[in-house]
């Protein structure tokens, strides 16, 4: 896979990778502490406390937690349903932790799918996500329009028998740009989103609109352009009859002519990637 080794990363990318690893570590730590009876609110608070105790002061968005059929966004119509509820975790239930901390001015946005105990269906979903990670990277390197890549991801999900659940996200996005965030002493939050990050996204939207691209990777016409250099938090999300799974991690897109250099995943040492590697070894 096209991840740059540590020495080749610019200090800036290293900063992003540091916060992405911090967020992954948080997800794994919180996932390990989940027990039957824990509510989504408690799980979200556990993430927030873990990260703030390690120096996180601002957020792209506050941590989310979804349990059971909420991992598949069953019945999601309005954005308020994204926020953690009092749903309690039960044995065998899938869960998703999603958080986007800002650390030393760098942003990450990660999604972590897990399951409390055995759930073969959830395992299958998670394993099937690997094909999407490969497909997205390949087609971004081919400089295909984002909207077309989106449609290909969609088609692959349907072929796999699943429903595309990132359709339920705001603007139906599969990815959005992330960037550096100026650290302010006071950064209020708007509907769970950090105001500084929103400002950055809005800036990108304004600039992008002038140049014909958008910081949101969606199925709509405004995504009908080749991949824009920068950092994209990519989050394919599949759902199948009350069980959902996703991963979210940062894809680096550059304007390099070398295909390998033109796009690569920021880090390959992430929980879901390690899991796929272990499965391959086991097989």
């Amino acid at each position: 896979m096209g991840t740059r080794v540590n020495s080749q990363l610019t200090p800036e990318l290293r900063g992003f990778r540091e916060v992405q690893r911090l967020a992954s570590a948080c997800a794994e730590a919180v996932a390990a502490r989940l027990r039957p009876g824990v509510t989504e609110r408690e799980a979200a608070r556990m993430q927030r406390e873990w990260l703030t105790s390690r120096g996180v002061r601002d957020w792209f968005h506050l941590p989310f937690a979804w349990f059971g059929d909420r991992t598949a966004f069953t019945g999601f119509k309005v954005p308020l349903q994204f926020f953690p509820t009092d749903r309690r975790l039960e044995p065998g239930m899938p869960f998703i932790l999603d958080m986007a901390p800002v650390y030393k001015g760098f942003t990450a946005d990660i999604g972590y799918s897990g399951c409390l105990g055995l759930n073969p269906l959830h395992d299958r979903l998670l394993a099937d996500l690997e094909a999407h990670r490969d497909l997205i990277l390949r087609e971004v390197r081919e400089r295909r329009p984002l909207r077309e890549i989106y449609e290909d991801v969609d088609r692959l999900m349907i072929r796999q028998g699943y429903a595309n659940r990132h359709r339920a996200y705001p603007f139906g996005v599969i990815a959005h740009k992330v960037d550096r965030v100026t650290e302010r002493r006071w950064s209020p939050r708007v509907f769970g989103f950090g105001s500084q990050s929103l400002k950055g996204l809005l800036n990108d939207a304004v600039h992008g609109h002038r140049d014909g691209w958008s910081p949101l990777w969606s199925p709509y016409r405004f995504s009908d352009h080749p991949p824009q250099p920068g950092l994209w938090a990519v989050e394919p999300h599949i759902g199948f009859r009350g069980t959902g799974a996703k991963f979210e991690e940062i894809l680096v897109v550059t304007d390099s002519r070398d295909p390998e250099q033109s796009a690569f995943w920021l880090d390959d040492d992430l929980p879901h990637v390690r899991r796929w590697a272990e499965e391959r070894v086991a097989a």
Partner: protein
Amino acid sequence: MSLLDLPGARERRVATGGIELCVVELGEATRPTIVLVHGYPDSKEVWTQVARQLAERWHVVLYDVRGHGSSTAPVPLRGGFTLEKLTDDFLAVVDAVSPDRPVHLVGHDWGSVQAWEFATVSRTEGRIASFTSMSGPSLDHFGHWIKQRMARPTPRRVGQLLGQGAKSWYVYMLHTPVLPELAWRGPLGKRWPGILERLEKVPPGDYPTASLPEDAAHGAWLYRDNVRTRLRRPRTDAYAHVPVQLITPTGDIFLSEQLYDGLDSWVPQLTRRSLPAKHWVPRTRPDQLASWINEFAAANESAGQGGVPVRDAAPKGAHADRFGGQLVLVTGAAGGIGRATAFAFAEAGARVVAVDRDAEGAARTAELARLIGAPAAWGETVDVSDEAAMEKLAEKVASEYGIVDVLVNNAGIGLSGSFLDTTVEDWKQVLDVNLWGVIHGCRLFGKQMAERGQGGHIVNTASAAAYQPSRALPAYSTSKAAVLMLSECLRAELAEKSIGVSAVCPGIVNTNITATTHFAGTDAAEEQRLRKRTSKLYGVRNYPPEKVAEAVLRAVVRNQAVVPVTPESHAARFLSRLSPGALRGIARLKPPL
């Protein structure tokens, strides 16, 4: 074939309380035991077909209830048939056939009424491992059921009381002295086999036996000795101490389904099954019963040895009581409505054969079906329009998986374009898949169903286009209209075989059909554009195939003839009957593409 002709059948007599019971055993005695108890006015021969199938895996024990078949009758008859004495008999039989291991108990009709007593009294505790009940409630539960409805008579409850009261007419008749005996020993006994065959469609065989008039005359005392006393003063401690599987025939003319409404409060571990059949299911649905008894007993046997208890293993999807363990075949199962239907059946616990010409997609459907609750699922690669391939498939399915209980002929392709642009090739292709595919399915699998003679259901996916003419879809609509008519004709023909036929007319559903639809009279680029455009419109409409799948399952449960699904399909169906002229007007409009 009669019971004693079955391989390995052996008869013995068990003495209990001054009478002798005739007991027949099948299968190896070292295996776990299943005891089958017959009802009124039957003898153990009512179980022949079920016992034959169970004997492959279990030690099967049948006995004639006292006063029936080859067992002797108590003297005097009055007071000789109380539930207490019947419990003595049962314990004597199980002590003789399975002294150190609890037995799996199965009862039909009065056999079930007795067995409820066995499963709820304390002196049988530890002697029973599981109980499968069909068409026979506990008299104690029944007594409480009546009391509850008398105590708080809402209109609905009064309706239930009156309904069951009317269905129980024969119980009052049996309480009159002498007359029932005279009738049974006289004309009724002679006519009974014919009545059963006509009303219940019981196939001829070793049942009813020659002892029927005597059995029926003696058996009247089952009612006289127990019904009034138990209904008047039902036991308050009638809690089942074993897991119970309740099989409810939905067409039972003697017992209403509501009788079992509050059963959960009496039975801590209850598994419900329902069967679209009349009262004598051991004769008319032996395969289904054997499979359910087998599955339930096996699950409890393994639970006894530390396995998963039955309740957790039971599927949780909609209509699981109806489709659990049944064999369902779906064509066009690699995507869209077919795939969603396969999944819905899988969630209900059915075994699924997913058929499609796309091998990878069919295999994928089967794999996911297993993950969501199908006890087994297979992917098969067949083009439904290929007669020889379909014949091969039918043979393979019958020999390897069994006779299909539900067949869903769903495979279909789209074809759009004006009649004048549609070539002969186009016509052939669309009729081959959409119509001939259905014909082959009905012909081959429907024939197997009919020959088995134990009912079944066929669902054909038609379309709202079947009754809505359109200038844009002449060939497609024609093929679907033919499917609709075929379904209705077949429904008429197969009704006498208890096989239901439904035509499902989905309407505009968000599936892949638009991405593969051929647009007659267009070049490749234009076709691609039109496909994209229609796919987009269907996507905007965004009616999920899962809802069509729900409608398919509902159609089978309710045995509906024609099932429009989306609102526009309902509207078109309504208009086609109320004002077909309006539909013809709409047909002239050019589609906005």
